[in-house]
């Protein structure tokens, strides 16, 4: 379980442009469930997601993962948690042009020092599971939007994380591809993973796959 205790996030503190993105969020996110954070633009969804995923630190408050406090961890320990516990799916995919889909997928596993042959075999297998086996040696810029997003999903899975974090994953997808994405999320759940999604797409937060919807507004929970 991921537990948030009175999490606050202030940007540009002490300056005229000071902005409070999160105002004391306390929340429990259950394991092996699909949770969606929804709310209008600027409500703090992405900020909250980045704090849970150890990509940024709160201004105040604590985050605990399976009982272990992670916000106070020194950076090099936090990197380890981020790398092994979370898989990230981004709205803009954030894939690297100029290298192949297979290399993009393998990239997050390089720092762990796994044998290349074993890593390549796993990456190829995961690409196959999302019908991308023919695209493994294609350069990223040659892929369609849906294919690129699926490559991004495979990349999130490469280190076998317990939690998948997806930030507005369907923002750039048509209806058919959005349904396909939710099918993939259903599979994640079946595999025992925890999924945390930010979205204001009704197709996502009204999906039967979703276990819990948390509404945010002005950095607070509206539940």
């Amino acid at each position, binding site marked *: 379980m991921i537990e948030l205790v009175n999490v606050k996030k202030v940007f540009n503190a002490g300056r005229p442009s000071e902005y409070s993105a999160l105002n004391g969020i306390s929340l429990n996110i259950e394991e092996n469930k699909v949770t969606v954070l929804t709310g209008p633009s600027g409500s703090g969804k992405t900020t909250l997601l980045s704090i849970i995923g150890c990509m940024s630190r*709160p*201004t*105040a*408050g604590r985050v605990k993962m399976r009982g272990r406090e992670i916000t*106070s*961890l*020194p950076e090099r*320990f936090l990197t380890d948690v981020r790398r092994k516990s979370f898989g990230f799916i981004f709205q803009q995919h954030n894939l690297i042009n100029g290298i192949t889909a297979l290399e993009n997928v393998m990239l997050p596993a390089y720092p762990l020092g796994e044998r290349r042959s074993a890593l390549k075999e796993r990456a190829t297998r995961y690409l196959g599971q999302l019908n991308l086996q023919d695209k493994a040696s294609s350069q990223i810029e040659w892929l369609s939007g849906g294919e690129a997003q699926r490559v991004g999903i495979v990349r999130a899975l490469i280190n076998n994380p317990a939690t998948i974090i997806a930030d507005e994953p369907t923002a750039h997808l048509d209806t058919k591809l959005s349904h396909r994405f939710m099918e993939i999320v259903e599979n994640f759940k079946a595999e025992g993973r925890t999924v945390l999604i930010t979205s204001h797409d009704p197709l996502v937060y009204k999906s039967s796959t979703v276990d819990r919807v948390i509404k945010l507004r002005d950095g607070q929970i509206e539940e």
Partner: protein
Amino acid sequence: MLLLHPGVIANLLASLIIAVMMLYSAFYGVQILRHWDIESGSELQLVLERKTYLVSTVLSYVFALQLLSLFMYVFTADNLHPLFVGAMCAAGTLNLNAFGYPTLLLKMFNFILAGVWLILNHADNQGYDYPLIKKKYALLAVVAPLILIEALLEFAYFLGLRADVITSCCGSLFSSEQGDGLGSDLAALPPGPMIWFFYGTVFVTLASGLYYYLRGKGGYFYSFASMVFFLTSIVSIISFISLYIYELPTHHCPFCIVMSEYDYIGYLLYIALFIAAVAGVGIATLIPLRGIESLREVIPGLTRKLTMTSLVLFFGFASVVTYRIAASNLIM
């Protein structure tokens, strides 16, 4: 005139940088000592958690500079000696006013403390929950005033250098026959028994270090033996090692050995000795911390590394000394 000497400028600049950075770090160190509470998720605690990275990094560089400054100080004092009547090496230059030797002694003491702080900091960085944060900042609270005093003494020394002062040469400061004071007392120690005592200390230190390295027992004893080795070696340099290096039965100066005439062998000996002493003291500093949960697996590896480092350096020191004694033309 002396203020424009590159060595003096480098020393004073280093001293100033160390003092200013120390004040900055001590300011946050005090806040960490007073307000640190890892259980709290307060804004202040999270600020301190971020700040400690900056302060630790600053201090790592400051203390590394502090280690260097000891040898820079000796080098400069040696370099300045032709400018003063009576001075034949750093010994005479340091005797020019009342601040030269106190600065050196404080630098030596702070070298050990700075080294221990760096070891503590390294160990703390291996733990996920800042296990030594209060201890290392408590040590900083002790070191910071000493380093500030050292900076004041160093400024007083360099600013107080007068070219018209006639100083004593090392021959009279470290004489076994004439003069009084600690230098002459050490020089007057009988070389024969001192050689036996020195090699006895070498044997006990190396044997206890090897035993600790192989069996993991007797760490405190080895740490204590390291300090005894360090002090014995300093005394031995004055008492008999210097005689063999200079090949003169009456010249006991511990500073002339850093001169080019003697192939700068003094730097080799002192650097080995000081680093080995820090590593030795570091072992006794770390042993009581092995019970801390997040350091349980880290401390044994660290103490082993420190043991091996100090053993290699002590052995190297003893080997170089033995070689110089064996190759010397002096027969006593």
